[in-house]
């Protein structure tokens, strides 16, 4: 009997143990390796770095620790500017996403109930089609002789071709376009639950619609605003595909810098150091996001 309950407990223990070990091995350990390699020197070899650390030689490792790559990151202001510009581009995009996403989510929440699930499905559908393809679609629209220019010239709104592709504006358009579902869905989830009688009461008491929007709707939608903003801001900071295809050579972003250190310059230690830098920038928003998300999932009735 005791034997059996032991077996049972061991089998039951496998449920958390298997995914735990998987994530530990393929998520946590790789991070430690990035950290380790970011401290080592580049080398012309395969793999192209010189390890500072053999498992057998702990004391040698501690002595040979090398912050050279990080010194380089601090000295060369390219990385500093790339970090700053990534955070700026991500922040502006998140704000634009809020401005674009809020009216859509609000409209969805006020639509007759029988249409709502259809609207939600319609918001999600583009997300199921390839991200790369959706960004590629904008290249044809934004390029100098592209479809946007053709359309605007056709209706006589502009006389000169627009030159949007390969500018920061194109990156904003791309991020807003690609991330819109991630902003709209959390906003919709909170707006849908909102009690309309509050707004009616405010209007009855003489509040203007504008004022009731800021004093009632926005505070009640705050969980959705926070979740949506973090869900867009964090990946936008590290975005690679959008600045690469739409941003041209002048758009500095750190995800792109990491990519080129790795693929073009083949400097793996420096690429790892850039990854650590990116992670340091994002650690606070990621922790906040995790708490918000865990609380949301667990608080659901």
């Amino acid at each position, binding site marked *: 009997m005791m034997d059996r309950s032991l077996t049972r407990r061991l089998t039951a223990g*496998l*449920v958390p143990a298997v995914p735990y070990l998987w994530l530990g091995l393929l998520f946590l350990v790789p991070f430690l390796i990035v950290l380790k390699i970011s401290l080592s020197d580049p080398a012309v070899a395969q793999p192209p770095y010189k390890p500072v650390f053999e498992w057998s030689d702990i004391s040698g490792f501690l002595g040979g620790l090398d912050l050279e790559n990080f010194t380089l990151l601090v000295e060369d202001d390219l990385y500093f500017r790339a970090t700053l510009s990534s955070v700026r581009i991500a922040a502006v995009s998140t704000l634009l996403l809020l401005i674009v996403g809020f009216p859509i989510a609000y409209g969805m929440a006020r*639509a007759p109930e029988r249409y709502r699930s259809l609207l939600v499905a319609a918001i999600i559908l583009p997300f199921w089609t390839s991200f790369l*393809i959706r960004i590629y679609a904008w290249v044809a629209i934004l390029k100098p002789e592209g479809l946007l220019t053709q359309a605007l010239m056709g209706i006589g709104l502009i006389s000169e071709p627009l030159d949007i592709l390969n500018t920061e504006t194109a990156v904003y358009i791309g991020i807003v376009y690609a991330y819109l579902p991630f902003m709209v869905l959390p906003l919709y989830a909170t707006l849908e639950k909102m009690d309309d009688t509050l707004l009616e009461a405010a209007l009855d008491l003489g509040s203007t619609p504008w004022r009731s929007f800021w004093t009632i709707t926005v505070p009640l939608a705050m969980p959705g605003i926070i979740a949506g903003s973090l869900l867009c801001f*964090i990946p936008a900071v*590290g975005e690679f595909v959008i600045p690469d295809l739409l941003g041209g050579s002048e758009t500095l972003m750190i995800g792109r810098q990491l990519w080129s250190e790795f693929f073009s310059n083949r400097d793996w230690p420096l690429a790892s150091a850039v990854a650590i830098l990116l992670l340091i920038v994002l650690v606070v928003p990621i922790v906040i996001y995790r708490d918000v998300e*865990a609380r949301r999932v667990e608080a659901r009735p």
Partner: protein
Amino acid sequence: MNRRLSVFNVTSLVIGFAFLYLPILLLVIYSFNASRLVTVWGGFSTQWYGALFRNEALIDAAWVTLRIALLSATLATILGTLAALALTRYGRFPGRTLFTGMVYAPMVMPEVITGLSLLLFFVAVDFDRGFWTITLAHTTLTMCFVTVVVQSRLMTFDRSLEEAAMDLGAPPLRTFFSVTLPLIAPSIVAGFLLAFTLSMDDLVIASFNAGPGATTLPIKIYSAVRLGLSPEVNAASAILIGIVTLGVISATLLSKRSVLRSRRNAH
């Protein structure tokens, strides 16, 4: 509840959905363009679809992508369901905080970091890059999405059904397979589809972990796109969009039918 759509609401919905769908629509329309210049209309033609099916490298890449997506989504579904059970049915086991951290972080982590760190791991353990490294990398990323989808279902369903089965003497494993699993099955399917799509779609993580002999479709499309617009890419995209649209519509219809059936049974 008495909700009414104002003119403003309707306008923002119309503009919002036009913004979401017009670029995709234009892409599909221009895949039937006879001209090699993608943005200049030169008459209707299906020649690029023909060219696509003669492009063996692209078709090979599509097969590799499909196989990776099927395998990694299957693994991710199993691991993600176990993780969701661990988070909802195991209370406060040791290391739970670290565990939730590891589940939520990969979903928002920039892909360049995930891709780079997994690659460096595979190099460190001397694992040849190719089909298997991409599969393992995708499994790790997508299992977290499966976890969240299944977890939210486990949170909401009626626990008393499980308790009743246990009270009647069903062992835990039996309870799981005959009570819990059927109840969470829709969310497991949804998680699988999500994992499958994410894997099919991924460029960044696959680029870091790809090796000789294993090139995925997004990697191929990306290198074609970097050289400029190409009508063949438009055609490939239109096919992918068509498959996804059909898949989503049939999944919606299927789930609607099963909802109707269960409603009927309830009466």
